[in-house]
């Protein structure tokens, strides 16, 4: 198993491989593993470090800098601004996500088929890919021993209101509900790519260069032939060693923000001018309920299921218990007032409303960093208000004392009657507080170079040898947790990737 880190690099050193894959998350690890198992010489380039399961612990002060991009301090600019989080470590965001494995709804796949004009992305063509990925990441329902009180509460609330509740299928092998998904699963149950695809790739001979930031593509004669990067010193955070990788093909799998950022540095995507466009982020609003009794929501799987009654309206609701530090950073109180609320942490049910994007934003380069811009539409805003009201109603139905709402000018609802004020007080899109972890789009896949950034094999129309394999491929919004769809598309890219003679 070859995993190199900053201490192993020498300035100006060149590494050679058949395929270099930038990123080791849901896209990169899958492409790399599939190719390595097919006998290709694969080399991964990963900006973050290698952190094995034994190193994971529940402390945010350790986990945020080690596992998250920019310590989790990334924001999408718009109305309202939306903080977002993505992983930066071997395994990428799969190390810190909830591991949900929903297949895209059939209507989404039909739309993809229609948008691309080809059956390749339709339900029938994608099914074997989903089957293959689900088998490899152990996509399963949770064992009863892993379900916590907050999940049961949400399920019971949905049942009382006559709403459809569906248990999650998650990438897990004997998950016991330690509820540390966001700081890295300490039990080894969550099948992030750190534990599923990366070991497959490495045992098939792939190598991984960690702590290397890909700065530029290496282009020769109009073809992509490698990646030029800088190794990051983990102590000083300085980028101090040049690292070059030469390969016959390059797969960029850095996520929907970093992938277009890298490609835009070369003025690519010219045929369609769609590179960096169609940025989707499936935003969510937190609804925090305080109950008269302790739930200990931090015990049990972080998300046991989802309320999908309003799926046709593009609204999904779910619980998602996070550590106290994350909750405290999002409440609009300071000092003793914040502590008074946080003393009720064990009585809190942390839930959220996810709304499917109705339009796209953009990702561009600005002062050497990526800038994501996205504003919710009035239609999205109206659905958020409706979703928050639904969820708060459920909490009051289940006996909540109060509900902390995601509005900067209306913080607390003490009864179901207070919810009538939501529509009246929330006329501006600036007063809702959103968050996201589902960034998608920006390198749309398609069958025509005029309308898409990459072809149906994932190869850029205007740069042969350069492939994309992450959430940026999505032609339209997926409306569910995107991990499974990313992995399936990455499998397809691996199957279709062709090397020059």
């Amino acid at each position, binding site marked *: 198993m070859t995993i190199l880190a900053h201490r192993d690099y020498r300035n100006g050193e060149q590494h050679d491989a058949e395929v270099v894959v930038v990123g080791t998350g849901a896209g990169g690890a899958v492409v790399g593993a599939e190719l390595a198992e097919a006998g290709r010489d694969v080399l991964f380039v990963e900006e973050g470090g290698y952190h094995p399961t034994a190193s994971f*612990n*529940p402390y*945010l*002060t350790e986990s*945020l*800098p080690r596992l998250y991009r*920019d*310590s*989790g*301090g990334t924001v999408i600019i718009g*109305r*309202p*601004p939306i*903080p977002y989080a993505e992983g930066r470590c071997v395994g990428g965001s799969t190390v810190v996500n909830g591991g949900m494995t929903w297949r895209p709804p059939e209507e989404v796949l039909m739309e993809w088929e229609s948008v691309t004009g080809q059956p390749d992305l339709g339900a029938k063509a994608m099914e074997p890919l989903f089957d293959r990925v689900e088998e490899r990441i152990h996509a399963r329902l949770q*064992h*009863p*021993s892993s*379900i*916590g*009180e907050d999940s049961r509460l949400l399920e019971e609330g949905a049942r009382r209101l006559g709403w459809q509740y569906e248990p999650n299928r998650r990438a897990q092998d*004997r998950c*016991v*509900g*330690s*509820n*540390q998904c966001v700081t890295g699963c*300490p*039990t*080894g149950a969550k099948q992030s790519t750190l534990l599923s695809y990366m070991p497959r790739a490495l045992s098939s001979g792939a190598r991984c260069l960690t702590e290397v930031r890909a700065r530029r593509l290496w282009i020769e004669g109009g073809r992509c032939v490698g990646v030029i990067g800088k190794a990051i010193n983990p102590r000083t*955070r300085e980028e101090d060693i040049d690292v070059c990788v030469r390969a016959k093909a390059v797969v960029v799998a850095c996520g929907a923000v970093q992938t277009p950022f890298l490609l835009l540095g070369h003025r690519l995507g010219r045929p369609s001018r769609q590179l960096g466009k169609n940025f989707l982020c499936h935003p969510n609003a937190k609804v925090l309920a305080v109950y008269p*009794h*302790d*739930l*200990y929501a*931090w*015990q049990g799987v972080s998300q046991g299921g989802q309320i999908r009654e309003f799926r046709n309206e593009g609204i999904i609701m779910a619980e998602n218990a996070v*550590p*106290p*530090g*994350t909750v*405290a*950073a999002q409440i*609009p*109180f*300071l*000092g*003793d007032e*914040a*502590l008074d609320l*946080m*003393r009720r*942490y*064990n009585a809190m049910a942390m839930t959220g409303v996810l709304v499917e994007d109705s339009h796209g934003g953009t990702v561009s380069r600005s*002062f*050497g960093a990526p800038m994501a811009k996205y504003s919710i539409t009035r239609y999205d805003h109206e659905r958020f208000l409706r979703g928050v009201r639904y969820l708060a109603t459920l909490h009051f139905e289940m*006996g909540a004392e109060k509900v902390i709402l995601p509005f*900067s*000018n209306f913080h607390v609802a003490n009864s179901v009657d207070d919810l009538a004020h939501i529509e009246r007080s929330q006329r501006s899109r*600036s*007063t809702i507080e959103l968050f996201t972890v589902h960034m998608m789009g920006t390198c749309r896949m398609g069958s025509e170079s005029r309308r898409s950034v990459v072809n149906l094999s994932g190869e850029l129309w205007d740069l042969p040898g350069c492939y994309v394999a992450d959430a940026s491929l999505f032609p339209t919004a997926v409306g569910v947790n995107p991990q499974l769809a990313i992995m399936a598309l990455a499998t397809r890219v691996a199957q279709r990737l062709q090397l020059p003679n």
Partner: protein
Amino acid sequence: MHRVLLKLADAILPPSPRTETTLEDVARHALVYLRYMPRSTATLFLLGMRVINWSPLWRFRGLRPLSALPPETARRQLLGVVQSRWLPVRLLMYGPLGLFMSSYFDQDYVHQELDYAPIPFVADRIELRRKWIEGREPGADEEIHHLPSGTP
């Protein structure tokens, strides 16, 4: 800048529980977080904190910066920023709130105050999974229940 960080942390965080090194620890964690960001982003965060420090002036609430005010007064002033009706003003607090609150509420003595104890729970769950891997599937007595049956 270090003094501003300490004073802002003092105003944002609950006065107790704290240890002698709470403010220093929280400020140090904030600086570690910033080191993992691009330099431009980290600079913006720090610049934002300087702007917040002078918020009494630009909000027409006084002539002295927050760092020169007693913590209780500074906290009242900051609450006005956090709950401002103006989005750009509220945005200024994203950084300090995220950095200081996530660090403070990550400390063991604060966890104790909240009756939050993830370490023993995780250890227990790791042991449970180990037994499962050895062939003993968890039974009903290993399910997570805290509410008496019949609780709404």
